[in-house]
């Protein structure tokens, strides 16, 4: 094997690519060649490094120097100064508050993270199975197939206390146990990769940056529950993810890690990709199953649950990407190792896509139980431009808001539930005082109205009613009683909708009313948007040309 003195890890995650990462990489490659360094410096195209706002990014080892916001013209300087003379280029380094951070481990954004799920992201080349294997990849699968009975695998997952990372936090081991106990020849494993929360891309990052960890998790699950086949249901809007997963499947088959008689163990299991056409509701497990079956993507009544009658009416295990990605770590390092991270009832880590009004946005993985304050101020570097923290929206269109008074709340399933929000799949949007809470609620509700499948009355008919009220409130036409109407309708929608989408659709509204009622009141009573976001001119008073219609007053 060839030995290089320097490895230049260039991020090839979707964000860095769309920011021009490929052009930089080509320029770098050309400069390395013209400097005659091709046998000394190796370029490694890795998956996502997380701090996507700083892309295109590159980390140079052995030093661990982090370069950010790279353009092709930077390549010559880096090669000349850093690779030839050993002097890292300061002006391209990660800096915050005027201070440069020479290495990755010193940067606060990375220092407080714990990477289990994203352990290989930004480190290995996702299109090279050997790099995954070199980093302990498929060791867990080997362990399972050579030394564990299926029931022992289920027990290990149970012991780990892992909870489903798709949103609801159901105990993964329990779910595996249900499916394993079903007496059926045909069982299926499905990976829900239909990530649809606006602005969230946790799953996409794993698919793009470390597809084998998902495959390994699914194969282990297949062995544990006695399944014959797995499906990865991924949105068609993730072409790079689809490409890399397809390549990973091909490589895994070629290496005898997938298909018939895996690792000569007698266990056979294969995985196929199914692409979704972009309906948010297809992230709901039974709607997803319908979609794989070629039916209209809308939820089924439950029971029966997928664990007894799922895909093609057979027992089906369905977990999301992040859940499966935890599995190889738990099996390889043991449930005890996993339980040491996080809290007693919410062990392990959670990946979030940190967005909104925060200095450093990007993909982060943190131990559960971390406080929101640590995420916002230590990892995210605080609120930009001297503004102050107002609230955090967690859980996307199904979630709720965490206000400033709960900044020290521990990010775990129970604590979030206690203030009316949910962990969700990992959307985390930070807001400062320039964000209008009514406007935010309206944004998410509009999303749900558009994504409702239309099957049950409360979600189909109720959410547009709530949206209509919010539209009135934010255009200066709010009326007394609107808040109560929103609360009542929202409550009924959550209590009588058929699926999770409907049951959580009103969360953003109910949660913002709970913590920011004064903002609603100010919109309704004073016709004023405290954050000056909403256009409060009553529409009814204007005609098409924007001219005021005169209203005759009765003397």
């Amino acid at each position: 094997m060839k030995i290089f003195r320097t490895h230049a890890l260039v991020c090839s995650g979707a964000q860095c690519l769309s920011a021009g990462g490929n052009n930089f990489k080509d320029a770098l490659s050309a400069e390395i060649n013209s400097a005659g360094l091709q046998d000394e410096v190796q370029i490694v195209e890795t998956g996502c490094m997380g701090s996507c706002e700083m892309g295109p990014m590159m980390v140079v080892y052995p030093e661990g120097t982090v370069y950010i916001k790279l353009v092709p013209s930077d390549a010559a300087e880096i090669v000349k100064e850093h690779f030839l003379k050993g002097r890292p280029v300061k002006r391209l380094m990660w800096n915050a508050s005027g201070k440069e951070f020479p290495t990755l481990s010193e940067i606060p954004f990375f220092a407080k993270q714990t990477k289990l799920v994203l352990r290989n992201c930004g480190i290995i080349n996702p299109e090279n199975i050997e790099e995954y294997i070199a980093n302990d990849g498929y060791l867990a699968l080997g362990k399972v197939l050579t030394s564990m009975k299926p029931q022992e695998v289920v027990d290990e997952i149970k012991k780990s206390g892992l909870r489903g990372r798709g949103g609801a936090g159901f105990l993964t081991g329990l779910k595996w146990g249900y499916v394993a106990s079903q007496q059926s020849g045909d069982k299926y494993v499905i990976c829900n990769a239909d990530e649809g929360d606006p602005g969230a891309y946790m799953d996409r990052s794993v698919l793009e940056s470390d597809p084998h960890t998902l495959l390994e998790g699914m194969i282990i699950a297949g062995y544990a529950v006695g399944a014959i086949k797995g499906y990865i249901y991924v949105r068609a809007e993730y072409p790079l993810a689809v490409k890399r997963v397809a390549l990973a499947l091909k490589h895994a088959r070629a290496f005898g890690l997938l298909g018939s008689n895996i690792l000569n163990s007698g266990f056979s299991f294969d995985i196929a990709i199914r692409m979704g056409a972009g309906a948010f509701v297809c992230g709901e497990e039974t709607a997803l199953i319908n979609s794989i079956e070629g039916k209209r993507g809308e939820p089924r009544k439950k029971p029966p649950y997928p664990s007894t009658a799922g895909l093609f009416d057979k027992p089906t295990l369905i977990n999301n990407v992040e859940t499966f990605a935890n599995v190889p770590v738990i099996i390889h390092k043991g449930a005890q190792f996993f339980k040491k991270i996080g809290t007693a009832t919410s062990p392990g880590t959670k990946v979030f896509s940190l967005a909104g009004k925060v200095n450093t946005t990007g993909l982060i993985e943190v131990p559960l139980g971390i406080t929101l304050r640590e995420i916002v101020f230590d990892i995210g570097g605080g609120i930009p431009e001297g503004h102050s923290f107002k609230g955090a929206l967690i859980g996307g269109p199904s979630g709720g808001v965490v206000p400033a008074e709960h900044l020290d709340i521990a990010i775990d399933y129970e604590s979030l539930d206690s203030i009316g929000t949910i962990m969700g799949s990992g959307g985390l949007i930070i807001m400062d005082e320039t964000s209008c809470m009514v406007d935010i609620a309206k944004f998410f509700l509009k999303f749900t109205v558009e994504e409702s499948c239309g099957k049950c009355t409360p979600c189909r008919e109720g959410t547009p009613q709530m949206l209509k009220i919010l539209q009135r409130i934010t255009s200066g036409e709010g009326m007394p009683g609107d808040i109560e109407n929103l609360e009542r309708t929202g409550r009924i929608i959550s209590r009588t909708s058929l699926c999770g989408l409907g049951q959580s659709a009103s969360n953003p509204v109910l949660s913002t009313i709970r913590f920011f009622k004064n903002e609603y009141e100010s919109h309704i009573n004073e016709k004023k948007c405290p954050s000056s976001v909403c256009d409060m001119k009553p529409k009814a008073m204007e005609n098409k040309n924007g001219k005021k219609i005169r209203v005759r007053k009765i003397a």
Partner: protein
Amino acid sequence: MDVNMQTVEVKINGQSYNMNEDMTILEACESVGIKIPTLCYLKGICEEGSCGICVVEVKKFKALRRACITKIMADMEIFTNTPSVREARRTNLELLLANHPKDCLVCSKSASCDLRKLTEDFGLKESRFEKTRAKDFEIDISSPSIVRDPNKCILCRRCVEVCSKVQKVNAICIANRGSNSTVSTSFEKGLGNVECTNCGQCVLVCPTGALTEKEYIEDVWKELAEPEKFVIVQTAPAVRASIGEEFGLPAGTLVTGRMVAALRRVGFKKVFDTQFSADLTIMEEGSELLHRLNSKGVFPMITSCSPGWIKFIEHFYPDLIGHLSSCKSPQQMFGAVAKTYYAEKLGIDPRKMVVVSIMPCTAKKFEARRPEFDSAFNYWQEKGTIKDITAFSDIDYVLTTREAAKMIKEGGIDFIHLKDEDFDAPLGMSSGAGVIFANTGGVMEAAIRTAYELVTGKSLEKLECKSIRGLDGIKTADIDIAGTTIKVAVAHGLSNARILLDEIKEGKSPYHFIEIMACPGGCIGGGGQPYNASEYSGTELRKKRASAIYKEDEGKKVRKSHENEEIKALYKEFLGKPLGEKSHKLLHTKYTKRGI
């Protein structure tokens, strides 16, 4: 109750009961006198829980549970009338009303609308919600049988499920999503341009005015008012067993005489009976069967009375249309005979004659519009009497049982207290065999009564053929006729028809003769019959109507088609013999391969 079934203890509103564990909350509550309101639910057919009306509170569950699809469990504590249950039901109903038109006074489903009844039961005074639908949907009038107004649709999906599960036609499905969802046909082509068989079972189960028959009431009133028009009416056998329901009489009340009297008072010049032409159908179809037996024709032969069934086979099994009897349906035979034989007899210009049918059926409206059904026109043209180039149809208007009742009501006729009157002669005379055409198995039984006697020359002792009566989906019998065993099968409901047709397709059908009717129960369960959606899933209503039909058969002096004196006269004076040249032109037809 199944003896193996476990019972569990549940509490309903604080009271403890031991219940069969297989019950839903809805059934459990109903068994102790608590009727939980439902809207989308149709037992065994529509069980998706979409409407959210039947919600109840179950202890330990945060969300409310749908009573219609939730099974009871041991120690379940159910509450059916708490403030939160009432609030949720009312809110969901109000949400449905928000986008529903408020033109109930002029809606044709007004009196039978489940949504309106529910609003009344809940004592709702208003919906707190505004209309959110920005643009109204287009009304689908592409079908000659069924009108679909998506604006009135509450997306309960009963129609979709009936079309899919009971009929296996799948002409309609949900299109679009969220608040743009609508029940539609493939590519929104409209019911008239897809594989819809016009059976109208969707119309029967629709809880609102979203699905109705295409009405021809006004057209018929207009014809009745024309002095130079000779407007006659024929009534299908099934109508007499059900039209009483429209006037508050119990289901299964036979009202033949009152129906005749009422129609006469509405203004029809003559009130005739489709049973007359049902007898005629038996003469032709029985002869056709014997002809096929003697000439080694295509077997099994399948009946052709039910227009929903005919359109079904034309779409889904076009290669099997050679199995169909070439006989027209009794409705069409009537029209052809009325505008030729009868018009000639009376010396009436057939162009002045208007033939109205009262049918339990929505598909008959489509059938009457088939371009090939202008045999009377062709007859007169050939004779040289009529030199027009504009053809006229054998049947002018088809009204459903429901439309007929509406006319009687509008005409101010006191239906309940009318004295019985008889049908007019000659096209009003019928045998008991003609009556039972209304029930599944009836056409077959009628055919056997005649075929047996024509072949053996002996009198058939036992007329009732029990093995092909009743509501089993597929019924079979072996009939011995002069030493030859004729194997017969009867199917009703198009999903059952599929089973027999697939057997034929695979070359495994053992039968000589098959009767198929599109609707469950046969014509008595037709899509034009009085609304009673709450009885749809059960068999009681169909059984009651069917027994009224058998009652009329038993009371008839003549119970075999070939013994009907007027039929004999028709052959003697006009047609000649069954399958003769005139019969061929007037009473037989061809089918169209439609495909899908």
